[in-house]
């Protein structure tokens, strides 16, 4: 049984990976090889990130591919134009 802390650590690792490689498109198998972790735990972490909308998931099961969903960014919001 995988410890919850290990899954969260992996979630964070995956998050950082996709933040560093925002155009990466990966399967759980590919990412598990890159990170040197088991595919089962990697898939669990990736699915949680997809639930949080940090990643976008396309497809199901082993063939599902994941990519980073950039957060909503707004720069230069003018504070002087209060609502």
């Amino acid at each position: 049984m995988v410890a919850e802390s290990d899954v969260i650590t992996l979630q964070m690792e995956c998050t950082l990976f996709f933040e560093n490689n925002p155009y990466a498109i990966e399967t759980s198998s590919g990412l598990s090889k890159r990170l040197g972790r088991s595919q089962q735990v990697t898939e669990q972490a990736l699915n949680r990130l997809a639930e949080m909308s940090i990643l976008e998931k396309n497809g199901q099961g082993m063939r599902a591919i994941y990519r980073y969903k950039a957060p909503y960014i707004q720069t230069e919001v003018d504070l002087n134009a209060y609502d």
Partner: protein
Amino acid sequence: MLMIDTHMMNDTREICQELQDTYAQLTNLLVFVTNHEGQLITAPSNIDDASVFDKYGSELQNMFKTEIDKLQGIRHTILSDQWVPGVKWLIAPVSVDQSDTGMYVWGGILIQQGTLQSIITHPNYLQPESGAPADFIELMRSWIQNTGEISPDQEIFKREKITKFAKALSLILKSSFKENRLTQRLNALNETLITDQNIGNPIEEITRAVLASSDLADVFGFALKTAPGKYTIMNSMGMNSGTLGGSIFHEGEGFLGQAVLSPQPSRWRDISRDPRNHFFQQKGLDSVYEVQCFPIRYENEVYGLLFGLSFKERSTPSINPQFEETMISLMGWYIGNHITYEKMEKQLQRFKPLIELSRMIISVQDIQRVMFMLVDMSLNLVWNPSASIVVHRSSEDGKIQMVARGMQSPKGETYAKDIARRYLDNSDKPGASSFINSSTPFSLMLEYPIVYADRTRAVLCVAVSNEQEGEECREILSALAMMGSVVMKSVHDRQQYLSNSNRFAHILHEAIREWNVAHYQLTADAQKIVQEFAMWGGIIKEEAEVIGRACLMSCTDPSMLRSFPHLFQQEAEMIEDYKHIQDDQSILGTGSYSKGGQIMALAFAIATAGDHDMRVVNDLQINGVDQGLVSQFRLFVLSRHTLQTEINLVEEKAPATKTLTAEGAEGRGLDAIVKQFGLSPREKEVLELVVKASSNKEIAATLFISEHTVKNHLTNIFNKMGVTDRAQAIAAVFNKSIG
């Protein structure tokens, strides 16, 4: 109800038998002890031949049972002559477990003075139709004939003694019964707790198992705090208790609500007319007589409540109420402890990854990147992630920057402005404590001001589903916000440092112009070459910044530069190394000087010679500079020179219409390469960007592929072209274009 004879231990049975025989001798009576079913518990006393009891066991049991059924409810010793008129038996009840059912002492036979003759001459005297076996009738006949008549005083004496024997027996058996019951209860508890250790039963199951085997109340319930001041009954057991599950009560409300406010167990009796009983009546529990409550606490925090309800008709109070109360109180402490442990475990599960994160986030040198990380990591750390936003004051001119996930414009923007108004406008008075905000367009938001350089510069806001979750996530998110403060301060300090360094470096550079214009121009050219070298991919941008500043200040005394606190330490070292190389005093040997110093030497060599002098490039050989670096620089200058040459060629052909860039080379060089080495269209696109000095990351971004894929393409391109790195590939493209 436990069978008396089954929990009567052998040693207890022996003592009872001894006592029975002693009283039988003292009273000169036949003495039996039966249970409420009429079964003999001990051997009959004062009977010479007891074989008849073995022979007619079931018939005699029926006789006793018939008599017992008529005597239901007796509390004192009575005299009965049911079997043979005038032949009396003393029957004394023995209370064992406070129930109506128990044991009976039979003492006989007693024949009053002057009645024997009339008994034995009675027409129905010991007739077979009485239902008793013939052998027993014969035995009875011999008992009657051998028994003398007794006086009233003797009868009183015998009654007292049989009563005392029954009481003594009751005390012995009660003690034995309690001990036995306690052993059984402890065994059951032990089994439950051992099971818990072995397979990790959920706490609800343990509670259910412990309460189900308790006889303290008729109905038990288990409520947990589900929000501040709010409790939900998670589990209930006992008759008609099903309706209690899922019920909600609040602190101070009714018996249960009051009990959670007390640090001690609470008890209310005879509550049938109490208005607070309405809570239970609503659930269909109409006849609650008593409520007992045991708070689930750990240290000063209440997590829930264990409670027991007893009904009026409950006739068998607990065998050992003190033990049960202590046990259930301990159970409350155990659950509280368990909940605390689970909460701490939950926090620890997130602190470990947070520590890992701190190692990675500390190297980030871009505010927006830090904001991305804070938003994404906060969602990873809360129990039920839904939304997160970081608002940062990016400048002093009233503009803010926001990064959000789970909330879109315009709501997100409105909320960001509200945050800025509340936290960032009053940034002279920083507030570092978190705040739970319920008046947002979203759910409850936990807001953490991020303070550094004496001002509130940013705010991290995370949505939580309820206040309880907010309380539980508060610490971990506070740690994340604190980490964000440290990293943002580091980025801020670095930006300040770079800004100051660049400003001072340019001031010093401008000062040179006053007394040496040529050197001013030379240092500016050298800095430009270093920047281009970084663009080409020879060094990273940050490294080029430092080397570029060193170029600008190259004629400044390094010891003077070192006198600037926290500034120019690296630059001073590079200038010293550069000067040693330049003066041909490279006593340390090739490649022993700092990389910055070596690059400065190369940049100045090129800047001094001028771009068009390719001989400098070919003969580039500086004592003290690493050969690998020289080769790299040569390729860089070659590509730079090739581009310049191409511009000139085209300018000659169409001077008024074309401005040449790398695309110019692409026309012939790139196409020729593609054709010669059979590159795929995608590989052509990648190579085209490589020629434009794009990094892998930039290529990935432009072509919407991962860096990993870019690397794969590059490996294929290099293999097809027979080159080992991008510099050689670029050179090949430009050579083709020239050739």
